[in-house]
């Protein structure tokens, strides 16, 4: 069974704003799906539709076969959700909060406490377990929210900017944890984020939204091919003959366009034969960031 299926999913807010337009997509179980797009693209709205917090204006979606608009509580029983609006209780400690939500998900008192401890440990929050949530920093709150989402060992995780406000070390820790969940436990991740470098590290597939529409969807490779057929090769060398068609980018750095990786050895051989002195060669595929800018038509920002 697919983990998530969208069929012509559309949402128009009461004010008339069309936040999501005819989304068609399906995700396999165990996929780590990066849902990207500029502010106001409709990412959070999509997450709310998937969790049944909003109901679609047209079309539908299914999460592990369940329609969240019909049976949100069933979807919630196997999902974990982190969004910026889902806060916890300031007057309770981190531990008490987790114990409460564990009970809400039907864990026994003992299971709840044990699971909470384990997650606090994994997220490096053990020291703050006894502190009131009111005294938590932004990043700590965010980590506790993630712990809350993971309490009942969900099959699907909806994460809306889960790492915003976290320090780089925590981001790495969280990324490692999420990747392990997907790989070892087959958890499906639906991840909205603006942190493209981190997304590139863990996502297996991406969807790019803009103004409510899905602009592009696919693996990094598929997206790379879509943006520019082929790749760039960068060579640091001296005495480069003009005949090879390399362009001088900076002092001693040359760049050439090729269509496949297999062309690199030939290019290097030719260069050597023609008397070039090579110091380094690197093949460059466009990063997620470059693809993002290319697809959203905002390339000028990069220059």
């Amino acid at each position, binding site marked *: 069974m697919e983990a998530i299926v969208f069929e012509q999913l559309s949402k128009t807010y*009461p004010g008339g704003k069309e936040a999501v337009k005819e989304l068609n997509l399906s995700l396999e179980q165990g996929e780590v799906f990066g849902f990207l797009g500029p502010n106001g693209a409709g990412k959070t709205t999509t997450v709310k539709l998937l*969790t*049944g*917090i*909003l*109901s679609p204006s047209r079309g539908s979606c299914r999460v592990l076969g369940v329609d969240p608009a019909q049976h*949100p*509580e*069933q979807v*919630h*029983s196997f*999902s974990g*959700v982190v*969004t910026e*609006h*889902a*806060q*916890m*209780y*300031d*007057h309770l400690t981190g531990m008490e909060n987790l114990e*409460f*939500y564990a*009970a*809400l*998900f*039907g864990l*026994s008192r003992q299971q709840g406490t044990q699971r909470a401890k384990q997650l606090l440990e994994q997220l490096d929050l053990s020291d703050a377990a006894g502190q009131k949530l009111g005294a938590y920093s932004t990043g700590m709150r965010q980590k506790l929210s993630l712990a*809350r989402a993971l309490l009942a060992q969900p099959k699907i995780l909806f994460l809306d900017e889960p790492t915003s406000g976290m320090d780089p070390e925590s981001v790495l820790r969280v990324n490692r944890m999420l990747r392990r969940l997907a790989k070892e436990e087959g958890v499906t991740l639906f991840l909205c984020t603006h942190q493209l470098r981190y997304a590139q590290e863990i996502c297996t597939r991406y969807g790019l939204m803009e103004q409510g529409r899905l602009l592009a969807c696919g693996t990094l490779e598929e997206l790379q091919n879509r943006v520019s057929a082929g790749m760039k090769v960068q060579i640091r060398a001296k005495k480069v003959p003009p005949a090879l068609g390399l362009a001088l980018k900076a002092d001693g750095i040359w760049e050439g366009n090729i269509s496949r990786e297999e062309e690199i050895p030939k290019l290097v051989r030719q260069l050597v034969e023609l008397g070039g002195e090579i110091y380094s060669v690197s093949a460059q595929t466009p990063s997620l960031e470059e693809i993002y800018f290319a697809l959203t038509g905002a390339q000028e920002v990069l220059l």
Partner: protein
Amino acid sequence: MKRSMYAMIHKDFRGVVSNRRLFASLLIVPIVLTVLLPSIFVITGHFTPDDPDLQQMLSLLPESIQESSLEQLIHQMLLNYILPVFFLMIPIMTASIMAASSFVGEKEKRTLETLLYAPLTLKEIFRAKVLACFLVSMLVSLISFAAMLLVLETELFFLTGSGLFPGISWLVILLLVSPAISLIAITLIVRQSAKAKTVEESQQGAVFLIIPIVLLAIGQFTGVLMLSVWVLLGLGVLCALVAGLLLKRAMGNFTYEKLLS
């Protein structure tokens, strides 16, 4: 009941009872109504029993009890006709304060959305909230009753040398009418506050619930209406039915979207 519902009730109940200032403020008015006010009555009744207004009021009491002494009459009237009305008002007041904080407070602090992500239907969340409010309001009622009985009986004992036995109508009030009215009030207020955006807004709605009770109280004071045990019993059963119906029906047409916007 699901363990998750129990967890919600437990959290809400503890949230009020362990917050000393909130709990004290919930108790202040009931204690004034049920301890301070009747004490003043009893003491002034003891020292100035010839007040003409009082005489007139007493003549309205049923024949059977008019045979006792004047002071005893006052006490009878106080304990069995005036004070019970307060026990209809107390749960409504408590409920309005509790219910307002339970949905709107969660909305304002942005914890409601998190609650909605739990594997509970809206109806179950709603019921858990109502039951938590109900328990607190019953607790406040019982504390008030115990305090009232203790203080009043002590005063009576010292002033007249004998206590007074609360009538059978108390049983009906405490165990049936008061809980039922309390449930109705809470269901309505929680529903109302699910729509409201601020705590104030949701409390305004509660004011209207007090009106019938105030009318009833005025009726009692002026002697227009003397509630017999049977009328009370009937009233109680009726209220319990309405409460049950409301609890079953409420939230039927609510969606997460309406609740959060």
